[in-house]
């Protein structure tokens, strides 16, 4: 079974595209000799229910997303840093469903369990996001944090 990396966001809305940016790096790493299969990579604007059918086939799932500095996630502080953490069982199981076409990562995993009877372990890689203008450019504040985010991504991919 492969790992699944899901990059979430809009690459034409500034820092919102960082999920895609990092997921593409995971795709580019490919498969090293003697290692597990290369990760499957999905680039999506939001999580939708049919993704559960794919999640069910994965060994582990990593959701890569931007988080708004000042929001609840990650604890903004004065110098917010990228964050990698496991999704707790039941976390977000129903929260986020009201958000429309989009599901929260925890809700997608919960839906996967209901639909397919399996729930691969999930992780979140969240990168502080500062600006959402039209355009593909990431903000200087976010770019300064990309090396740390890439190290977290590499660590997750290397963790068999």
């Amino acid at each position, binding site marked *: 079974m492969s790992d699944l990396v899901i990059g*979430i*966001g*809009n*690459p*034409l*809305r500034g820092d*919102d595209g960082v999920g895609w940016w990092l997921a593409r790096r995971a795709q580019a790493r490919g498969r090293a000799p003697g290692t597990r299969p290369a990760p499957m990579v*999905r*680039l*999506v*604007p*939001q999580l*939708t*229910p*049919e993704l*559960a*059918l794919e999640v069910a086939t994965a060994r582990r799932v990593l959701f890569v*997303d*931007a*988080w*708004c500095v000042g*929001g*609840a*996630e990650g604890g903004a502080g004065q110098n917010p840093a990228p964050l990698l953490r496991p999704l707790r069982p039941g976390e977000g*199981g*129903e929260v*986020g*469903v*009201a*958000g*429309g*076409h*989009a599901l*929260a990562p925890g*809700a997608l995993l*919960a*839906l996967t369990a*209901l*639909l397919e009877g399996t729930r691969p372990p999930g992780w979140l890689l969240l990168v502080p996001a500062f600006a*959402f203008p*039209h*355009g593909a450019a990431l903000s200087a504040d976010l770019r300064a944090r990309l090396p740390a985010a890439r190290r977290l991504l590499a660590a997750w991919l290397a963790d068999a």
Partner: protein
Amino acid sequence: MTRTVVIDPVTRIEGHAKITLQLDEGGHLVEARFHVTEYRGFEKFCEGRPFTEMAGITARICGICPVSHLLAAAKTGDKLLAVAIPPAADGLRRLLNLAQLTQSHALSFFHLSSPDFLLGWESDPAKRNVFGLMAADPELARAGIRLRQFGQQILERLGGRRIHAAWAVPGGVRTPMDAETRDWILARLPEERATVERTLELYKGLLDGPLRREQRTFGDFPSLFLGLVNGEGLWEHLDGGPGGGLRIRASDGTVLADRLSEDDYRGFLAEAVEAWSYLKFPYYRLLGYPEGMYRVGPLARLNVCERIGTPWADRELAELRQRSGSGPAGVITSSFAYHHARLVEIVACLEAIERHAADPQLVEGRVRSRASLNRNEAVGVSEAPRGTLFHHYRVDDDGLITAVNLIIATGQNNLAMNRTVAQIAREYLPDPVPANAEIPEPLLNRVEAGIRCFDPCLSCSTHAAGQMPLRLELRDAAGALLAERSR
């Protein structure tokens, strides 16, 4: 004292919006306003870009229906090149749009709206969602997800990438369909037919029972309807072809305008602006604002066409008109019928997908006409899941965009959505509203459900994880908060 009830933002629709119910001094409802408070700004952003990039750029306006913008942009590009696309490319674009309609309608019906129908308006809002649906009817929930997946996988297989694949280009498409994709589609169709057949049976039973009141009170009013038809007046979703085009039909069945060309859209459509919303208010120019209110989308497409042109879909359309329509043309005026119309359109899509998938030229045919820029202005049109979509570009001699106007389906339904919310509020709010009234959850959900009939897609261009809570505020004329409710 004038008071205002605010629902902010609306849940289970795309983008950010709020609903204000304006009460007069006696506590009677005066009007409803569906505010769109997020400015998207993509039209300005496109200026200076090559027109050949427009498909890829505009497809990123929306993560739910990117194909709609992709096709409208490609069709506008065809006109700037002044080329006729190969027949195989037309068939492939049609297949793409049919898959898009299927997946979008499946998401709207099964995941967003059916929890209301199947679990009940008074059910716990924490469970009135796809999880509640899984618990109540796991087979249906799973089938709905697989139907959505079917459409998504066609998009992915044709375009090479599920979202934002710039596969449709000015002049045609990039690649033909491979034989494996054709075989996969044809093998999967029986399952999807069975899903829709069972769902239609279930839904008709609900219409005969618990949903009777909603049919009558969820936006049932006269209006115009606009959509594409082909040269024989049949259902159309991409290009009317010779003798076809845009048709406007009134609620009494009268065809007010026919065979309209998108090139002349400014002649028959105009857009009003209100200070309280970023969403414009298109209307039929000849009747003025707001009398020229019209609706687009699945219900409008089924109202403007004579019939669909495939056997099962025509039977379902006839039954829909018999159940919900009136007059010799069987025009349906209840916005609640958008849900039923989506199911009928899925039937039409599945029948048309089968026909296109079996067409050998989609695997073998020439798929792209090549030319350089030959015109400096063009208008393209397509039928998106939510309705008619116009792209209008002006370019300089280097093909760089100098001006863009996008008229999106949700905007065209704007007036009708306001009218729908007002009708629901009048039906379900006490009249007059007592000063200390609490707004019960089932009422809130009905107001929101009235909006969801149109499946509006306002903007999902920045998703901002963790947002979209629901907040209800009751404010007096001075803006003071009288009551608040959130979930």
